[in-house]
């Protein structure tokens, strides 16, 4: 009943995460009625190939190949914060509490999913540690078993060549102890800190 171009748009939209067939239809009808928005989205999509990965940290940047953080001379290049994915780096950046640089692994090691150390960006990290003057690695990986597996692997690999720390694990700010799971409580206790630090 619908023209093929319209039908194809619905099909494409419904492949996006969280968008079912019904929502895709609704969006398609909306776009037909808002041609200006449609054009903006289309040109944004056409420009997508111009988005590149920073050759130093892996974050997204334009084709000139170094992102705004890696090219900023006021960032401390001796401290590297290791994160799993670009969104994690953005989360830390938005907190404004870190002034070093980043390295994105693009994944976690997971034996039960067959994701090996070779499948994530560890070789690049090894090269940085060997060639650049890195003094400290801060592991800011997910608080999941795969994040933990990856942290342990990195620690065992580089413990003799660089100082390694990791972000604290514990009760989230605003969280109530009563509703916290057993593992979080165990970790919060075993990694407790002194109040006069």
């Amino acid at each position, binding site marked *: 009943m619908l023209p093929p171009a319209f039908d194809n748009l619905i099909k494409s939209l419904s492949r996006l995460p969280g968008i079912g067939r019904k929502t895709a239809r609704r969006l398609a009808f909306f776009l037909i009625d808002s041609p200006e928005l449609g054009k903006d989205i289309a040109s944004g999509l056409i420009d997508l190939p111009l988005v590149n990965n920073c050759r130093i940290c892996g974050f997204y940047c334009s084709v000139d190949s170094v992102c705004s953080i890696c090219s900023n001379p006021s960032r401390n290049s001796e401290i590297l914060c290791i994160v799993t994915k670009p969104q994690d780096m953005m989360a830390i950046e938005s907190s404004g509490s870190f002034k070093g640089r980043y390295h994105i692994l693009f994944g976690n090691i997971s034996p039960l999913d*067959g994701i090996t150390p070779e499948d994530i960006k560890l070789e690049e990290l090894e090269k940085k540690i060997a060639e650049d003057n890195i003094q400290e690695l801060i592991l800011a990986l997910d608080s999941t078993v795969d994040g933990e597996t990856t942290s342990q*692997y990195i620690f065992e690999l580089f413990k003799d060549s660089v100082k390694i720390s990791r972000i604290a694990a514990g009760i989230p700010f605003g969280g109530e102890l009563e509703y916290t*799971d*057993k*593992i979080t409580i165990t970790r919060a206790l075993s990694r407790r800190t002194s109040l006069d630090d």
Partner: protein
Amino acid sequence: MDKVDAYISKKVQYGESDLILHLITKEMGKISAIARGARRSKKRFEAGLSNYILYSCSLGHQNRSNLFLLKETSIVKSFQFLLNSYRRISTAAYATELTALFMPENQEEPLLFEFLNHNYHLLDNPDFSPAVLVPRIMYKILELAGFPPQLDRCIHCNSLMPDTGARWGFDNNQGGVVCPDCGDLKPIVGINELKWLVAEVDELKNRRINRREYNNIYNLLSSFIRYTTRQWLVSEKFLIF
């Protein structure tokens, strides 16, 4: 509603917020269950449905589906020391995947489950090195699953493996060692390797296994498992020490 104790052997994302889990249970063998909203709600599923944790799971049945509905989980036992070591985690992953391979579906197999559970406890104990546990894990799971390789005497002539340290070859097809008189196979295992397979737990305490013995047993048993099951385990490559 059923309550089972289980380890998660595999997690698959399903749609936006659901997870499909493969569970190794004590009461029902291997089952699959869907955890609706698991990626949004942390309340019903303690510790976010992680591998390497023993959970108590509340299950429901779904109409016209052999997929159980996972309603709620709580931690029975977590293994903090295990999670502090890459080797221990890799060994736990392999033991879990190997158990899942041999565990029958929807059918109680308490000995296999108990052996897995027992190894989680050993891997959480600093007195046991993970490499020392691997040969015993592989051998015992094969034995419990009904595929024990014959390693102490020749599969053809039944002569006993000598305690001289001489190594014999292994025939995957026959599932046993072959003495030099009965066949010209590449020598792999001798009495020194065998002792790691059949050792009592206490004998493995604070022991170290040398790389050659480890590799000999590991290569023999992993190729026998592949030959017997025609399956390749994804966690296998993590055990090459």
